[in-house]
């Protein structure tokens, strides 16, 4: 009898010890940061200095301040990170704890699938410090990610070439832009470079014409509702067609990439072969990386997109966006602390000082040293409303159909109506 009962005794003992162990693990601790070893994985989109180095420093500082915490910080190429690595990691259940989150449709898709932690309460103070720039990362009133950089799109240009072409001041209307393009052609320079081979840079031109053609209320209502019946969407394409007739872009723009190599649109500007490029606030860094000495050239200037006559758009509405970080729904609480540190005024000021972008924290505005970035920050401050790049605002499903339809206009094989049809077809397929 003893022998037969022995196994059940052993089992009871095992269950008891497991229970004690489990209870001990659940016991409340005073300082979760210093209790036990925690590893936080942080994925960002910086693959070169100064930003890569800054994020590595930030991770090391956080480790030093929080014994037992290890931060594994990795930078990946922007589109690979956002379009492939993060969705796969989320889907496989092995998400990084802190990762890049694009605003608009992207944050909405991730939040609705339950992958992002609600930051509204745990980071309430930080959200209050930031003000309006956090809105694009808000979904149905809940804050799911925090921006670290935010800026508006404008035209980057070569001040020396403008001088040679006799252009005294940056164009402020579309007519002046067309005149400037003609003057630049006369001195043998491609007036404007556009990387239509990558689709989205051409897309930005149509988005901008849509901002000029559509009223603010149409933008704010139609985009979330995915309703493209307003005639202003067609007008945007017609304005673009009219502008294209003046042939302002570089030779072979249909196959030109945006940011890689000397023959990319940024490369053409960097080498002095093209005078202008309509691009986001990151462009000084890209152009700088493509010059012979890998420095941002002293002749690089920036001006806001010229006004387009005849549209219902408010000229103080600008187009832009930024990058943010969110916390995985399953991440340990300490990850939120790291997020707060990354977005603290102090780290944001250091980010602004690197010149790698425009820090989203208002306290970092004075730390901007680059003159062009200061101008962008001023433009941002003077904007009545910042419309996210439309492919970001509409969501990942829209990017390619929309941008391809726009590039078809650039290639002379599409119409303004086709762009609206692409938008409606994509919306209908969702």
């Amino acid at each position, binding site marked *: 009898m003893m022998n037969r009962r022995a196994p059940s005794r052993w089992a009871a003992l095992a269950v008891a010890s497991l229970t004690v162990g489990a209870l001990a693990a659940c016991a409340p601790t005073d300082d979760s940061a210093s209790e036990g070893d925690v590893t936080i994985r942080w994925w960002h989109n910086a693959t070169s200095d100064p930003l890569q180095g800054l994020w590595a420093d930030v991770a090391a500082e956080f480790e030093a301040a929080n014994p037992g915490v290890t931060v594994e910080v990795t930078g990946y190429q922007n589109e690979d990170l956002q379009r492939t690595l993060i969705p796969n990691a989320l889907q496989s259940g092995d998400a990084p704890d802190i990762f890049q989150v694009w605003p608009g449709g992207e944050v909405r898709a991730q939040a609705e699938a339950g*992958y992002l932690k609600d930051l509204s309460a745990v980071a309430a103070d930080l959200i209050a410090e930031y003000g309006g720039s956090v809105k694009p990362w808000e979904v149905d009133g809940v804050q799911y990610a925090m921006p670290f950089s935010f800026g508006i799109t404008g035209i980057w240009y070569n001040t020396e070439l403008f001088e040679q072409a006799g252009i005294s001041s940056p164009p402020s209307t579309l007519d002046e832009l067309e005149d400037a393009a003609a003057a630049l052609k006369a001195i043998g320079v491609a007036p404007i470079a556009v990387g239509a081979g990558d689709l989205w840079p051409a897309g930005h031109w149509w988005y901008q014409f849509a901002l000029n053609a559509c009223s603010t209320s149409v933008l704010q209502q139609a985009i979330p509702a995915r309703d493209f019946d307003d005639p202003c969407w067609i007008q945007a394409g017609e304005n673009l067609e009219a502008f294209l007739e003046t042939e302002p872009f570089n030779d072979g723009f249909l196959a030109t990439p945006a940011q890689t190599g000397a023959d990319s649109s940024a490369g053409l500007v960097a080498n002095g072969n093209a005078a202008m490029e309509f691009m986001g606030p990151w462009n000084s860094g890209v152009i700088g990386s493509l010059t012979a000495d890998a420095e941002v050239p002293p002749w690089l200037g920036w001006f806001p997109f010229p006004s387009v006559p005849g549209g219902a758009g408010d000229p103080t509405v600008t187009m832009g966006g930024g990058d943010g970080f969110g916390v995985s729904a399953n991440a340990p609480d300490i990850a939120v602390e790291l997020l707060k540190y990354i977005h603290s005024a102090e780290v944001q000021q250091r980010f602004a000082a690197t010149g790698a972008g425009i820090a989203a924290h208002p306290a970092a505005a004075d730390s901007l040293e680059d003159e062009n970035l200061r101008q962008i920050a001023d433009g941002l401050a003077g904007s009545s409303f910042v419309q996210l790049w439309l492919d970001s605002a509409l969501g990942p499903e829209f990017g390619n159909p929309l941008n391809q339809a726009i590039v078809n206009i650039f290639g002379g094989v599409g119409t303004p109506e086709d762009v609206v049809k692409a938008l409606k077809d994509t919306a209908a397929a969702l």
Partner: protein
Amino acid sequence: MTTSLQAGPAVTAGPAPTSRRPRTTGTGRKWLEIGLFAGPALIVFIMFVIVPVALAAVYSLYNWNALGPLERFIGIDNYVRALSDPLFLRAIGNNFTILIASILIQGPLAISIALLLNRKLPGRAVIRALIFVPYVLAEVIAGLSWKLLLSPRGGVNALLEAMGLGDLTQPWLANPDIALWVMFSILTWKYLGFAILLMLAGLQGVPEELHEAAAIDGANWWQIQTRITLPLLGPTIRIWVFLSMIGSLQLFDMVWVTTKGGPVGATNTMAVYMIQYGQGQYGYGSAIAVILFVISLAVALVYQRFAMRRDLAGSMTTGVR
């Protein structure tokens, strides 16, 4: 001899089949051997080929962004959408254009060069190596090099200018009228070496005696090639055509690196379209993958049934002993 005599008893030693249950044991052992040798490969094949293909077929029936759960069943809507998108239809057309052009242009070119290189020439080894170099180059390196050479400010245009042919300069990859043929030229440059290598290997199997006998009978070089060499090269040519067809249908990397399917869809292929339009819409991307799979399978089966029947007689259906 000694070794083989010693090995004889060793094989039959141990629990040898007895006369009482010869069939069962023999069959069992046969299945054990099959399981042992084919099992691991079969498991890997099922996990990494059969299951993904089946999953893609399932996903293709859903509207799915890969983030949320798989719950919005839409039937064949993704297929209807793909087959009614002019850009996708153009991509299919481009795939078949490259397929047909490969067979009609690359094939004869490769055979001709192989026949020339099969003769005794000074520097033959060097020429063979040079022709094979592009095939050895990594696809991305080759694509990027051509992209730079063919850009408006690139080497090809500079060369034309230097030769006084400035009128012929072009934005080669940005002109929708010619981009597909420029792409085809790059592909020919890249893959011709492989075709020539295959043909040369095939030519090694053509007995020299036949040529000599024909020559004694008074046949000239052309007659020998067309009546003896080419028919005997048939199996090699048919295998190359098969590889070329599958490669043309699944064409992705060179196009992605050089044009991403542009300008305005002129060089788009099914695989490039799948990557571009499947982003964020995995159900739709899966439908494209299934269409690509079905087209490739259909072409392969039809070709095997009609063109390769003699070459494959027995080997695909009844197994090789």
